[in-house]
């Protein structure tokens, strides 16, 4: 357990109202090591924001939620080691971008000698140096988002908790922020927790992913592990014949689940990946020329949709 920077075990959260009790999280468990990027995805209302707020010490909970080996409710000044972006931006329109960051630098108690330098660094990083003295009410949505990202990095965090970090950003800045997140994890060992609806980004960035639905984690592991468990077992075979010419023969094989023409080849769904050599032998024996064979990765989106669709 001590190797984990973020450790959640049996995390449960109930919202109580007068007549009812809503179970927002039910025995959620995940563990994140130092320098890992963890993706947390799920439909609206699944419990993502509740988890984020628990990790930031904003909500009470049942179970274990530890950061740096300390329960989040007892973090106190250690919260200064966490950088975050929430859906609430926490910006004052009448502040300038620079003043806003100075305000947060004071909240984090960053010493005066490094405060100014650090503010300039993060403003430079998000490309807001030339707008630092402008009031925030003149900023676009993307600029506000960039300012929030600058704020998240201001305290040189050990853990970065990002709720939809690329929301509202143009393609250039999305790319910049994604590459910066990767660098932070790899070079500085910053542990990163991301929630996003952009599943492609999550599959590209994250070492581990958890899919949450209705307050429960329905899948947890690396993208590759998820594919093994939940992905379709598909291979794309490029041969010298068209599907209708080989369909009858292939359907005789008991491990073939589905066949369709795709991308200049035949996309074959199989019941077990271990059957691929048998398939190759079969095609060779039939005198079919194989130009290429590759495993088809199931997009995270497909896994996500399969696991979160309404029953």
């Amino acid at each position, binding site marked *: 357990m001590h190797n984990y920077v973020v450790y959640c075990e049996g995390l449960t959260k109930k919202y109580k109202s007068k007549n009812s009790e809503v179970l927002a999280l039910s025995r959620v468990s995940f563990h994140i090591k130092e320098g890992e990027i963890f993706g947390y995805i799920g439909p609206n209302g699944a419990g993502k924001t509740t988890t984020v*707020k628990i990790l930031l*010490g904003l909500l009470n909970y049942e179970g274990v939620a530890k950061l740096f080996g300390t329960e989040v409710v007892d973090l106190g000044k250690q919260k200064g080691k966490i950088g975050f972006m*929430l859906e609430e*931006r*926490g910006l004052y329109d009448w502040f300038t971008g620079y003043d806003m960051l100075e305000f947060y630098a004071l*909240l984090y108690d960053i010493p005066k000698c490094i405060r100014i330098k650090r503010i300039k660094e993060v403003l430079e990083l998000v490309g807001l140096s030339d707008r630092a003295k402008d009031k925030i009410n003149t900023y676009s949505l993307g600029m506000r988002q960039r300012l929030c990202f600058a704020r998240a990095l201001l305290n040189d965090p050990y853990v970065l908790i990002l709720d939809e970090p690329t929301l509202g950003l143009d393609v250039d800045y999305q790319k910049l922020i994604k590459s910066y997140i990767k660098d932070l994890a790899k070079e500085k060992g910053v542990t990163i927790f991301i929630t996003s609806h952009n599943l492609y980004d999550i599959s590209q960035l994250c070492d581990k992913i958890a899919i949450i639905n209705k307050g429960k984690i329905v899948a947890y592991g690396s993208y590759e592990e998820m594919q093994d468990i939940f992905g379709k077992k598909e291979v794309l075979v490029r041969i010298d014949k068209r599907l209708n010419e080989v369909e009858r023969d292939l359907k005789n094989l008991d491990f073939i689940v589905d066949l369709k023409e795709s991308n200049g080849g035949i996309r074959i769904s199989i019941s077990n990946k271990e059957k691929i050599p048998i398939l190759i032998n079969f095609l060779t024996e039939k005198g079919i020329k194989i130009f290429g064979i590759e495993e088809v990765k199931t997009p995270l989106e497909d896994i996500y949709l399969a696991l979160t669709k309404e029953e």
Partner: protein
Amino acid sequence: MKAILYKNLKNGIFRRSFILALMPFALLIPILIEDKYSILFSPEFKNMAIVLWEKMIFYIPFLFAISFGSYLIWANIFSDYYSKNISVFLATPLRPIEWWLGEVLSISIIVYLGSLISSCLLYILFLINGVSLSINIFTVIYFTIIVPVFILGINSFMGCLSIMFGGFLFMRSIISYLFIIPMTFFLWFLNNYVFDFENLNNAKLSFIPQMSLIFFIVGVILIVISYMLIRKIDNEKIVTKTV
């Protein structure tokens, strides 16, 4: 706490104090009007304004604390609730008690400065009109100890109520009305039992030290009650009540 002070400083704390300081002078308008306009104002009204003006030098700190102070502090806290900025602030190492203290101190500075500037301006106007108020040790104690403690007490309590109930939209008006009723009674008490305005033409202030002690105690009690209440508030109570 430094950050909250910084925020309010950037929001024009001194400019706001000065604007506040000028507000009571609206009562001077009928007095300053030329004779040809005086028909608009009856002599009774003019006299009333003069009497009020003279009394105001003693009322101002309390008026400022009760009306402007309590208004400013709940406006500040409610705007953070309404914009949901408070969730973001509390995700940093800031604790609710520090947020409360930062808001209370900065608003109290505005109110205290406003009341001091206003009182000084009125005092100067007294002098210009040939009315001199004697400044004795009690007047000094009144403005340097009792008034700040009372302002802090009122703002602490109002800030505490705003943090505890600010997330509920309907509580906003209830808090302000509930607060105004006992405070109006307090002003009445002030008028009738604390200051003797009988001989204002001689500009003789009869200041009762024992009563000033009561104000001091009221201020301290409000600070202590607010502190005890605010200590028990955790982040969830604030975040989940955010509108």
